[in-house]
């Protein structure tokens, strides 16, 4: 079999598939001055977010590493995308709906934690406290 199965097409949007195969922001960020790491207790997935924040509070670059599923990886990649160039305050105001809008996918309740983990790690990186 080659290419995506109909099942995969209904489960994962093109955005998720693309960012899972080719994430733009995956890898270490040697110059990071803010970072956090957390796990999804349901599956053991782990994501680390690294931010390079300029003195005036603007995020110049964001990268992530982790061992995670397609939804979580794509979500982390989108989060890194969205925060780049924004101020700490703007980044902290990011909502799950912002990420889901980019992912263009119907995330089922059992996988929602996969989508939200990177955002929660971002919040921890920004203020050292988990986002509720």
């Amino acid at each position, binding site marked *: *079999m080659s290419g995506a*199965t109909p099942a*995969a097409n*209904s489960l994962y949007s093109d955005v998720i*598939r693309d960012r*899972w*195969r080719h994430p733009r922001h995956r890898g270490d960020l040697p110059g990071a001055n803010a970072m956090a790491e957390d796990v999804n207790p349901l*599956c053991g997935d782990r994501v680390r977010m690294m931010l390079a924040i300029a003195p005036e509070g603007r995020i110049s670059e964001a990268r992530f590493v982790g061992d995670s599923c397609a*939804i979580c990886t794509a979500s982390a990649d989108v989060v890194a995308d969205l925060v780049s160039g924004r101020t700490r305050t703007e980044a902290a105001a990011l909502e799950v709906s912002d990420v889901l809008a980019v992912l263009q996918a119907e995330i089922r309740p059992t996988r929602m934690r996969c989508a939200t983990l990177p955002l929660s790690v971002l919040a921890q990186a920004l203020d050292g406290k988990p986002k509720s």
Partner: protein
Amino acid sequence: MRLDELTRRDFPILERVVNGHPLIYLDSGASSQKPRAVLEAMNRYYERSHANVHRSIHTLGEEATELYEVARDAVQRFLGAPSREEVVFTRGTTDGLGLIAETIGRTLGKGDEIVVTELEHHSNLIPWQLVAKDRGAVLKAVPVRDDGTLDLAALDRLLTARTRVVAFAHVSNVLGTITPAKEIIGKARAVNALTVVDGAQAAPHMRLDMSALGCDFYVLSAHKMLGPTGIGVMYGRRAVLDRLEPGRGGSEMIKEVWIDHAQWNDLPWRFEPGTPPIAEAVGLTAAIEYLEKLGMDRVAEHERALTRQTMEGLSRIPGVTVYGPPVGVDRGAVVSFAIEGLHPHDVAALLDAEGIAVRAGHHCAMPLMRRLGVVGTTRATFSVFNSPDEVSRLLTTVAGLRSAL
């Protein structure tokens, strides 16, 4: 006739269509489906005989008590336990292991040692961590070798005069490894340690004989062996139960009570505080009778064939890794695998889209995942109702997944 041909129609849930496909349920290791006989027995009990057990002096109370205690006899028979007083009902395996850890824990002192293994389910690890922390005891683990078996030479080194407990799984819920229980029990005995066996994955799939095994404790869950959720069994060897103080207090487990002390009830009720899961006990009886009618040796043979078919089929698919003991080594009805480039959760979601239910993740065995160097695996587990055709469907679907995402 194959076992699945014989049993399939007894499981109403197998008529379900999931995501446009007939359900293929390969997650019995997490919780099995229930035959109609179990559901009907529980319904009948609630519709005709329900009351509280043991102290109700009326007809329904007597019927309920009788049905509850009949379940104990069924379990005694199923386990090959020497006496019914050794069969204690719990809420499940986790509850049973917690009860044992708390109860034995009270007898432990600073520097006493508890030995577990690297392949334990968290349910047989965390209670011992809590006990070790509480009592100042030392927790050690027998390592797992690359082929998924336990390093028994290491066990020999870990056992000392201070070893008080050796707790281990009879069958690994991740790798399917059947541990050499008798040998481990013999070694533990030699240093006078108590033995606790987690039988959650073994009880549904093989003939058990407590007398021959010789362990001090054996625990299981009804819901993994065609029975209902909410009830489990703690078998405890009488000589050990007799000298242990009850782990938990409440009604039922006492004979006489004063404000400042109490006299404990006889076995097994000493370890069963509160109103027990009565309907669930009735369901467990029906599940045991169902398995007995099939014959546990036949059950084991059927599941062995499915497991072998799965392992051989998966091994032939490029990019698929199968974990645990190789084909040819007997294992429980468990096959964990990985597909290169795909995360286990995505594998499970893609299989679900084809109506195939498997489990994915760390399977509550994070130390073992760390040992394997993975965050999780995808796991197929089998029961009496699964067919070779279902395994073929799994294999075909897995073969097409690598390019699916």
